[in-house]
């Protein structure tokens, strides 16, 4: 789960951060998941071994809440509606609950790869 990112460059430069942040917030708001009561980490694609492993490590209570949010969003999506505005996910509620686990699993995978000195590539 790695993709090219400018996150650290932007985060470390205060001026750039101040400039980009409003656009980022605006983008997060219009992307629509918050209107369905979801968090950003709920819409990460699950169908790969790393995220699957990360989901297994999620504490049970976190996982339950996550499932409830996804079910609710699914229902809303079926009904072609969104939540009333006061129930939207607030920016401060949009916690990255799954990302640390994904990061951990990714690191472990990388370590495993590094230890496999020889990699056989079939042609």
């Amino acid at each position: 789960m790695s993709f090219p990112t400018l996150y650290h460059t932007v985060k470390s430069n205060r001026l750039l951060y101040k400039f980009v942040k409003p656009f980022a917030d605006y983008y997060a708001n219009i992307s629509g998941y918050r209107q369905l009561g979801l968090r950003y980490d709920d819409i990460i694609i699950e169908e790969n071994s790393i995220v699957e492993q990360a989901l297994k490590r999620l504490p049970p209570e976190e996982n339950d809440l996550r499932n409830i949010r996804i079910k609710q969003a699914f229902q809303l999506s079926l009904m072609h509606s969104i939540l009333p505005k006061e129930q939207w996910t607030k920016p401060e509620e949009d916690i990255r609950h799954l990302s640390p686990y994904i990061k951990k699993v990714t690191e472990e995978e990388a370590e495993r790869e590094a230890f496999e000195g020889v990699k056989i590539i079939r042609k």
Partner: protein
Amino acid sequence: MFRTCRLLSKPTIPLSNILIRKYASVSASPVVVSKSQTGITVVSVEEGAPASSVAVVVKAGPRAESANSVGAAHFLKNFAFKETQKRTSFRTIREAELLGGVLSSNLTRETLIYSAEFLREDLTFFLGILSDIIFETKYFPYEFGDVKKSVNFETNATKALPEVVALNTAHSVAFRHGLGNSLYADESTKVTYIQDIIDYAKKVFTAPNITIVGTSVDHKELLGLTNELFQNISHAVPSTPISSKYYGGEERIPAKGTSHYVLAFEGAPANTPDFLVLQVLRSLLDGEKHTQWGEGVNILASNFKDTKISTFNNGYSDAGLFGIYFSGVATSIYQAARTAVEQLKHAVKDVSEEDFSRALAKARYNIASAYEERASKTEIFGNQILSTGKVIPASEAIAHLDQLKVQDLQNVATKILQSKPTTVALGDIYSLPYSEALSL
């Protein structure tokens, strides 16, 4: 087939060489004991071997469990070599493999032993791994599931071993709590969440509870590394466990297949003179055959061909369990157990000098060989330091054994017969004897 071959082949060593008695060179390997600055006792034996071992012996066996931490010792054992601040579990295993070392964690009733075996020059790395277990293990909640799985697996695997079940039950009947706590976390475990293990670890990992035992390592180097790696150890004085009390009693468990029977008495704590006497008594009664295809020497060994009979003498810091273990057909066990009791009573009344010296020789050998093997040596030294604060070398134990008289044996045999017997019948409980039937 193999047997015939062996008998026909000519001896390759000239007979005269066998007949000349040679004395094994008993250049006693020096055991050095010192207290490190951290308060941890460091023991090392220099044998000059290229393969070394180092073990961290912690007084954290099931004995140390309290009512609300039943089973925690087994969980803690299986939490060894999990992720630490410095390395993931995967990295620990791979790096140890690359250096050609072996890591293991073992549980006895009183101690938890983390040990590493490796080539002499890798001491720093392996002692580092062992200290990481104590200080740096992260105890991730998601690892709990894996650990629980392995704990359950071990518990269920041992449930299928009647010998283990019988002896474990014998301990719980004899001592109830403390030494009677099960080695395996079974259904009655109170460990339900990661925090239970962390609490237990915090309680047991303190300086007075730990001994480091090294074999074939440089003592100064080991001491220096201990000072460096274990400097953050807690100095909390652990609560002294309630002293063991022997109860005794009877337990009968129905099971299919071969029957098993344990008859045990109150033994003596390890490192006491009585314990050594019991070692002799054990050899005297021993129903094991020591030559292949041979006839046993004593009655128990030669008369009961369809019953496996072995004696045990388990010594702990403040109590012991001495007994005989039978397995085979229930009706033969009945006969064998009666004979064993007769033999025991015979030992009280009259033992011939010949039998006594035979038993003494076997006991001497048993002690010497226990000190020979690396794992058992580590355990012996660790336990001695943790319970008495000093090391008793093999030569000393054997020297003590040589002074024993038949009278000592009779006194101790009388004493153990006075204790209430512990019996465990596992298998065909209809035919297996009740302790009253053994005319004790």
